[in-house]
């Protein structure tokens, strides 16, 4: 009883300390320097600076997070910086040296269109690189145990089969069991070995973008390569035009021109080709993964067709590019609470439905019985967030 009386003013601080003790990652020393501020209401007295950690800090995959969990990328980002340098350098040279001549001698619309294209390219690149591609959170221990029980009960032979067959639109699709994430992967999902995550509608891991390309960022990736194709063709064409019109060569001009032409030439062949390939994939509603493996290609003696295609090129395109954007299933910026189920080796917050603007979502989200106060977007667990004091007693009782 006295414990309760003491606990109430300290409330969440003591609670966090006790209830995350099983987590290998939670440690008091990190929270004092944690920038995850604003987690406790200022009215809570006795606050000792031990702020609860956010879920991205204990995320089990091999990802990097920036801006307090708002930005999510793969571990190796070197090639992404190269992409940025190439685009900015080439465009910068174009705007600085070619555009003044072209604007005055041809049309001021040229730099304007170039600027719009450049901004769109950068926007789509950053969006594709920084967003969650559709990572599936790993199973909670209870779920994993339940699945194990089911698997063991079905098979008589050892080892028991770890695949499930599903009939989708008349096609038999095999669902594989992921040993890392301890789930049966949904159709079209795949486990990325570089990021160590299962990703929904996995297309490929793109080092140029520094992230996986999956369900949630495929359209950004596609718009990026499409607009980059236009930008490179645009710059290539107008650099050549400038050179032809001026026919004045000093060494600096020659050097600059050669650089722009070489970059654009190789980019045109590779990027335009890639855009064409992805246009084909979108129109047939396939992923790069499926195309490479030949999953839906015609096989002898088998009636093989793509069960996900809508049968119509226009519908396939519209769905892929303008369809509803699903929210992130990993609640990166949610706070770790004791009643959030942890995965076995490391604690991992389970899906809590963040979005690209997670702070906005959390304050309005489902469990927002305490708007503005609650960071965790959960449903039933949030209902008890009032009862921190009771939970402390619960934790000590059992």
């Amino acid at each position, binding site marked *: 009883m006295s414990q*309760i009386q003491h606990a109430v003013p300290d*409330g969440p601080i003591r609670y966090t300390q006790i209830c995350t003790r099983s987590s290998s990652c939670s440690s008091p020393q990190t929270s004092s320097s944690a920038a995850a501020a604003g987690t406790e209401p200022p009215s809570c007295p006795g606050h000792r600076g031990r702020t609860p950690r956010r879920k991205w800090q204990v995320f089990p995959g091999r990802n990097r997070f920036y801006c307090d969990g708002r930005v999510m990328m793969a571990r190796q980002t070197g090639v992404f910086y190269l992409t940025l340098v190439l685009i900015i350098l080439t465009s910068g040279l174009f705007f600085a040296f070619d555009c003044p001549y072209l604007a005055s001698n041809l049309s001021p619309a040229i730099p304007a269109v170039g600027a719009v294209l450049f901004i769109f390219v950068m926007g789509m690149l950053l*969006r594709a690189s920084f967003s969650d591609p559709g990572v*599936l*959170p790993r*199973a*909670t221990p*209870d*779920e994993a145990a*339940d699945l194990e029980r089911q698997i063991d009960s079905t098979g008589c032979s050892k080892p028991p089969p770890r695949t499930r067959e*599903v009939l*989708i*639109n008349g096609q038999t*699709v095999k*669902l594989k069991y992921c040993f890392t994430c301890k*789930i*049966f992967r*949904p*159709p079209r999902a795949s486990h990325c070995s570089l990021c160590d995550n299962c990703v*929904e*509608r996995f297309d490929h891991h793109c080092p140029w973008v520094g992230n996986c390309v999956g369900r949630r960022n495929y*359209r*950004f990736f596609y718009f990026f390569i499409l607009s980059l194709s236009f930008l490179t063709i645009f710059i290539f064409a107008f650099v050549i035009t400038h050179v032809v019109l001026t026919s004045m060569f000093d060494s600096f001009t020659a050097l600059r021109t050669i650089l722009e032409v070489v970059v654009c030439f190789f980019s045109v062949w590779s990027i335009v080709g890639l855009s064409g390939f992805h246009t084909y994939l979108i129109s047939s509603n396939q992923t790069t993964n499926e195309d490479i493996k030949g999953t839906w290609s015609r096989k002898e003696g088998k009636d093989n067709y793509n069960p*996900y295609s809508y049968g119509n090129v226009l519908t396939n395109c*519209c769905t892929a*590019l*303008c*369809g*509803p*954007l*699903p*929210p992130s*299933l*990993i609640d990166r910026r949610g706070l770790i609470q004791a*009643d959030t189920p942890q995965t076995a080796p490391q604690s991992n917050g*389970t*899906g*809590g*439905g963040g*979005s*690209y*603007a997670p702070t906005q*979502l959390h304050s*309005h989200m*489902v469990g927002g*019985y305490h708007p503005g*106060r609650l960071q965790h977007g*959960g*449903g*039933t667990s949030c*209902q*008890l967030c*009032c*009862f*921190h*004091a*009771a*939970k402390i007693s*619960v934790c000590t*009782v059992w």
Partner: protein
Amino acid sequence: MKNAGLRCFLYSINEQIRALAGSHPKSVLTGFKCVQTHSLQDLQQPAVSSKVFVQRDYSSGTICKFQTKFPSELESRMDKQQFEETMQTLNNLYAEAEKIGGKSYLEGFLACLTAYTIFLCMETHYEKVLKKIARYIKDQNEKIYAPRGLLLTDPIERGLRVVEITIFEDRSVGSGR
């Protein structure tokens, strides 16, 4: 997991106190303090619970849909009809979230034109429906599941993989004083 035993009981108290004390966190805490002694005395033994997981149904493709088959563990607790109705409504709501049609195309097109900055100011259709789903689950828990010692967990908390139903052992958890 043992917390879950307290959770269901406290859930009903939570709502009563909220109604009495308003939604101010402090007043809720204060209001609850006086009830704590009762809850601790009542729940000296943990309410042992087990969990049932309703998996996804992929027969219609990759859309979010859960199996409506009635789990055998719930046979003693509730009506098959009610369970199937809950699952069907959930499936319909998720179908509404992922529905492709004029409205979603318009939203996608506008978003593309604004370079997706429009979502900094407004919610996507999917997010709006997720809120609706959460309200529905809360409502179902209050009316149907909590009185039977069950608790539905919102699938979004489990990454839309499963619908987790927690079963509490029948202790005298009915009355909230």
